[in-house]
């Protein structure tokens, strides 16, 4: 793929080489208010979505978990308790501001000892083959420039039998809900962004990037193409969010 090829940044077409920079700018801007905005935008429901993700992780004491685009560490904090002192949690994020917020938050919560922090690109993960029992990526895949490359990278570093959990915004399954959701995303979210984070553009990007992300079946096909032996998805909140659970043979 040449640098001059185009990809989407929300509804805007940008050079492939520029996308990650643009995404980085968004997350540098939102990092400080990320958790507050998540709670406001979803009414706290994102916690339930993440909880369901953890329940599907089959995480146990002693396991190694990688939390990609882990940002402010919601999932990593829970996994740290589950895997215990004999396990390991790696919180990886491409954005240094998000990683810093996450690390500070976890340390303030007293979560330490089995968590490591790595600034890494999901498209080329710097870990050995067959290393992790479980990989999670919550609301991060839609920001990745080359999703196929990222899925292949995740497949490589998973242990056989390990699972990848992709929690991401998806396509509502009901036409009426879709209309309401569109109204909410394009009118209310940027306004919330303006009032709370003083950054309406980043939240407009959020709404647009969700619309450009593959739907449930397409993402499932991509995971199978990347080498996963099986992939199934669970729709949540009418399909507004979906959890894809992909198993490596």
């Amino acid at each position, binding site marked *: 793929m040449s640098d001059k090829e185009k990809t989407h940044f929300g509804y805007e077409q940008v050079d492939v080489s520029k996308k990650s920079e643009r995404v980085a700018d968004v997350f540098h801007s939102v990092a400080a208010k990320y958790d507050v905005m998540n709670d406001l935008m979803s009414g706290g429901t994102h916690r*339930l979505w993440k909880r*369901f993700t953890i329940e599907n992780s089959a995480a146990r004491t002693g396991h190694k978990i990688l939390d990609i685009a882990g940002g402010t560490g919601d999932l990593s904090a829970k996994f740290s308790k589950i895997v215990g002192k004999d396990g390991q949690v790696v919180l990886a994020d491409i954005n240094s501001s998000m990683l810093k917020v996450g690390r500070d938050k976890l340390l303030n919560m007293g979560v330490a000892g089995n968590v490591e922090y790595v600034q890494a690109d999901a498209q080329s993960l710097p870990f050995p083959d067959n290393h992790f029992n479980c990989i999670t990526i919550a609301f991060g895949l839609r920001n990745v420039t080359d999703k196929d490359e990222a899925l292949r990278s995740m497949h490589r570093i998973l242990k056989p*039998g390990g699972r990848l959990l992709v929690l991401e915004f998806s396509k509502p399954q009901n036409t009426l809900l879709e209309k309401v959701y569109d109204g909410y995303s394009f009118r209310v979210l940027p306004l919330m962004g303006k009032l709370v984070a003083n950054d309406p553009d980043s939240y407009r990007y959020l709404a647009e990037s969700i619309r450009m992300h593959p739907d449930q079946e397409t993402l499932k096909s991509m995971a199978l193409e990347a080498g996963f032996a*099986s992939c199934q998805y669970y729709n*949540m909140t009418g399909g507004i969010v979906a959890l894809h659970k992909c198993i490596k043979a």
Partner: protein
Amino acid sequence: MLGPTFRSFITSLIEFSLSQALSSSASNLEKLKTLDGHNLCIEIKDFDTQFVIYFDSQDTRISWQTDEEEKEEQEHNQDSDYDIRLSGNLKDFLSLATQKNHSLADSGIIASGSIGLLEKLQNTLTSLDIDWEELIYQKLETLAPDLDLQPSANLALAPLSFLFKQGKEKATYSFHSVSNQINEYLRFESGLIVSKQEFEKFANQTNQVRQSVERLEAKLNAFLSNNSTHKK
């Protein structure tokens, strides 16, 4: 089946309540440590669903799975066997939970897994002492420590106390009371109630009397008019 978001909401509530209850007492926490690292699966057969409880010294986690999700889990996860599995219908679990003289052996619930651990679990759970009323009162106090919550707390707790301690007795009394009233009514009042056949018979007889009266009236009028003609 209920969606994942709703299930997560319910298990969060249960987990939060349990965690608050258990952490309120050091002795409860000590008792739970004996179950550290183990898990318990409660399978409710008539709803094709199961709850898995993971005991941990830091947290007790609860997961709600459907039977289908559990089968997939077992296909892909070699260590998905549970330490203890209790399998039964909802009414069996409710009887076990609510009736003190009810034992696992009599309940119809099938237990499998580590017998030693099952005994430990039974002993631990029956010896846990959770004062729900005190917990709720403490929570109310911490919410507004500067206010005098005593009257409000008493007012709020009075119905709760009623519900927790006497709810079952009241419900039982109410049921028996209504049941007795219905029996008494049927025994003493039913004799006074007219049946449909009796009413129809009465209506027919009334119609016959009315027709007889009309005929008699007509005859009397005819007789009187004849008499008045003769007198002329």
